[in-house]
C-alpha cells in the first residue's frame, strides 16, 4: 500500500470519541476569559484610589482626567498585564515540564530557574542596584540557571531524571546564595530580597511588561506547536524515533521553551508560588476526563488563562485585601493550596487509584 497523502479541499475537524468534546474546552476558555476580564477590571479599579469601572473605561476612551489616566496607565495597567503574562507563562512552563520530566512534582522551582531569578535579583539588590535594574538581574539569573541546566544536562541525550537532579543541585546552590544574602545583609535589603523569592508584582513598569510580552508572544505559540511532540514522546524514545521524531532534539527544544517561559515569568515578578506546580493539575482536572499527562492545546490554553486569573486575582487581594500589602506569592499559595488539596481528595474518592508508572 503506498502512502496516502491526500489534501482535502476542506479540512475536517474530528472529535475524538472518548475525549471531552471540543466545545468543552472552548466553553471553558470563554468562561475563563470572562473571569479574567472581570478580575482585570477589578484590579484596575481598586487600589489606594478607588475608581469606578466607568472611570476606567473613560481612560480607554480618552475622556478621563489626567490623574486617573496616570494611575491607570502608569501604575495599574502594567501591573495587571504583568500578572497576566507571569501567570500564563508560569502555567505553561509547569505543564510542559511536568509532561517532559514525567513527574507531577516538576516545576521551574525544582529545576532551578525560579531560584536563579531570585538569586540574580537578590545579588543586585545586595549590591545596591537601583530598583529598575532588579528585574533584569532576575532575568539574567533565571537565564543563566536555565542555560546551565541545558548545558549540564545534555549528555548522550536528555534524561528526565538527570535534568531533575541537576536542577535540584542548581536550586540548592542558588537558594544558598539567597539565604546567605538574607542572613548577611541589613534587614531592609533582606526583606526586599525575600520579597523576590515569593513573587511580587509591585511596581512593574511598561518597560518590563513590554519585554516580557515580547518573550511570551514568541514562546507561547512555540509551546503550543511543540505539544504534538510531547504527545509522541510520551510513547517512549524508541517509538518516537520510529515515528520520525528526533527524540533528544525534541526534548531539548521543549526544555528550552519551558525554561524560557519560566525565565520570562520570573523576571516579571519573581517565582510566584504555586502557579507553575499547581495550575497544570487544575487545568487537567477542569478539562475533564480522560486526563492525559501530555497536555493538549486546549489544556495549555485553559492553564494559561487559569494562571493569569490566579495571578491577577491574587495580586488584587494581596495589594488591597489585607491591612498591609503582602507579596502576591503568599496569596496564590494560600488560595491555591486548599483548592489543590480539595482536588486531591475529590480525585481520591472518584477514581480508583491510578497505576503509577514512573519511567524516569
Amino acid at each position, binding site marked *: *500500500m503506498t*502512502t*496516502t*497523502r*491526500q*489534501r*482535502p479541499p476542506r*479540512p*475536517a*475537524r*474530528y472529535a*475524538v*470519541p*472518548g*475525549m471531552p468534546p471540543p466545545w468543552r474546552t472552548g466553553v471553558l476558555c470563554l468562561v475563563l476569559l470572562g473571569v479574567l476580564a472581570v478580575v482585570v477590571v477589578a484590579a484596575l479599579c481598586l487600589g489606594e484610589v478607588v475608581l469606578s469601572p466607568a472611570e476606567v473605561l473613560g481612560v480607554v476612551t480618552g475622556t478621563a482626567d489626567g490623574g486617573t489616566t496616570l494611575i491607570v496607565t502608569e501604575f495599574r495597567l502594567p501591573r495587571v498585564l504583568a500578572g497576566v503574562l507571569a501567570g500564563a507563562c508560569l502555567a505553561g512552563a509547569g505543564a510542559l515540564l511536568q509532561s517532559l520530566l514525567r513527574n507531577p512534582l516538576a516545576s521551574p522551582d525544582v529545576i532551578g530557574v525560579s531560584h536563579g531569578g531570585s538569586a540574580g535579583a537578590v545579588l543586585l539588590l545586595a549590591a545596591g542596584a537601583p530598583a529598575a535594574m532588579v528585574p533584569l538581574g532576575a532575568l539574567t539569573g533565571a537565564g543563566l540557571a536555565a542555560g546551565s541546566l541545558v548545558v549540564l544536562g545534555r549528555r548522550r541525550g536528555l534524561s528526565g531524571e538527570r535534568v531533575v537532579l541537576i536542577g535540584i543541585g542548581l536550586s540548592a546552590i542558588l537558594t544558598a546564595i539567597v539565604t546567605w544574602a538574607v542572613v548577611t545583609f541589613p534587614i531592609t535589603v533582606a526583606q526586599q530580597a525575600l520579597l523576590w523569592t515569593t513573587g511580587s508584582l509591585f511596581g512593574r513598569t511598561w518597560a518590563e511588561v513590554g519585554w516580557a510580552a515580547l518573550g511570551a508572544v514568541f514562546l507561547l505559540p512555540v509551546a503550543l*506547536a511543540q505539544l*504534538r511532540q510531547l*504527545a*509522541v514522546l*510520551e*510513547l*517512549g524514545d*524508541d*517509538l518516537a*524515533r*520510529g*515515528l*520520525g*521524531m*528526533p527524540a533528544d532534539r525534541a526534548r531539548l527544544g521543549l526544555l528550552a521553551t519551558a525554561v524560557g517561559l519560566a525565565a520570562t515569568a520570573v523576571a516579571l515578578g519573581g517565582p510566584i508560588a504555586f502557579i507553575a506546580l499547581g495550575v497544570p493539575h487544575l487545568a487537567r482536572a477542569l478539562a475533564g*476526563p*480522560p*486526563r*492525559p*499527562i*501530555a497536555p493538549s492545546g486546549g489544556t495549555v490554553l485553559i492553564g494559561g488563562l487559569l494562571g493569569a486569573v490566579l495571578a491577577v486575582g491574587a495580586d488584587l487581594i494581596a495589594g488591597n485585601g489585607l491591612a498591609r500589602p503582602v507579596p502576591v506569592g503568599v496569596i496564590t499559595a494560600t488560595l491555591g493550596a486548599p483548592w489543590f488539596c480539595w482536588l486531591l481528595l475529590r480525585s481520591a474518592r472518584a477514581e480508583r487509584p*491510578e*497505576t503509577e*508508572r514512573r*519511567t524516569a
Partner: protein
Amino acid sequence: MTLSAHELTLSYPGRTVVDGIDLEIPAGRITAVVGPNACGKSTLLRALAGISRPSGGQVRLDGTPLARMPPKRLARRIALLPQSPPVPTGISVEALVRRGRHPHQRWLAPWSRGDQQAVDTALARTGLEELRTRPVDRLSGGQRQRAWIALALAQDTDYLLLDEPTTFLDLRHQLDLLNLVAELNTDSGRTVVLVLHDLVQAARYAHHLIVVHKGHIAAAGQAAEVLTEALVENVFDVPCRILPDPTCGSPLVLPLMPTPLSSPSSPNGKEQR
C-alpha cells in the same frame, strides 16, 4: 524495494552486540528473527528501523543508507513497534492510534480526511473499532498489543518491524496476532519482520528465518532448511528433535526432556517447572 544491512556493527559503550553482519530482508515476505536472549535481536531490529545509529556499516533501504534519510520520510516507509512501550495514561485507543500519523503530518496542517481514514482502517484491521473510546490503560494485554499494532498500521508503511509482539500474550492472543500479521502480509504485501521467541511459531508463520547467535547470523533462509537439530542445540543450547509439523509441514521443534523425567512412571513434567 529492499531493506538490507551491510557489514553492520552495533555496539553499546564497552561491548559489541552485533559484529559486521550482512543480511537482506526479502520484500513482501514475513521474516522472523530468532535467537537466544541477549544475542542482539532487538538491537538489530532497531538498527533496521533506523532508530539507532550503527557504529560500523550501514543499513540501506532501496540502496539509500538510512542514516541519510530524513527521519520523517523514513518513518513513512518503516514502522517499528518496540518491546513493551510505556502505556500513556488517560488517552483513548483512538487517540493513541492517531499518533501513528505523526510522520505524515506537516507542521501546521490540520488533521486531514486521509489521516482519519488511515486511523479507521487500522482500527478495523485490528478489530478495535468497538474499543476506540476505551482508555488504553484499561485494556487487557491482548487488546493493548493490538492497539500498538494499530498505531503501527496507521503509520501506513511498507515495512512493519515488530519486536517480540507475542511476549506477555496468552496462546489465543498470540495466534490472533500472528494471524493478523499474516493477513497484513498477504492482503497488502507489507514486509514484516518479527522478533520471536517461539521457534514453532516462527517456523509456521515466517517465510524467511534469520537465526542470530552472539552477534552473528548463524543461519538465514527458509525454516525447513535452517532449523536443524544441530543448529538448535548449538545456538539455543537445547537438545531437540525436529519433526515435520502435522498441520502445515514446517519444522516442529521438540525440546528433549532430561533423562530421569522421561520414564513413563515419573510424574508429569509440570512439577519440574
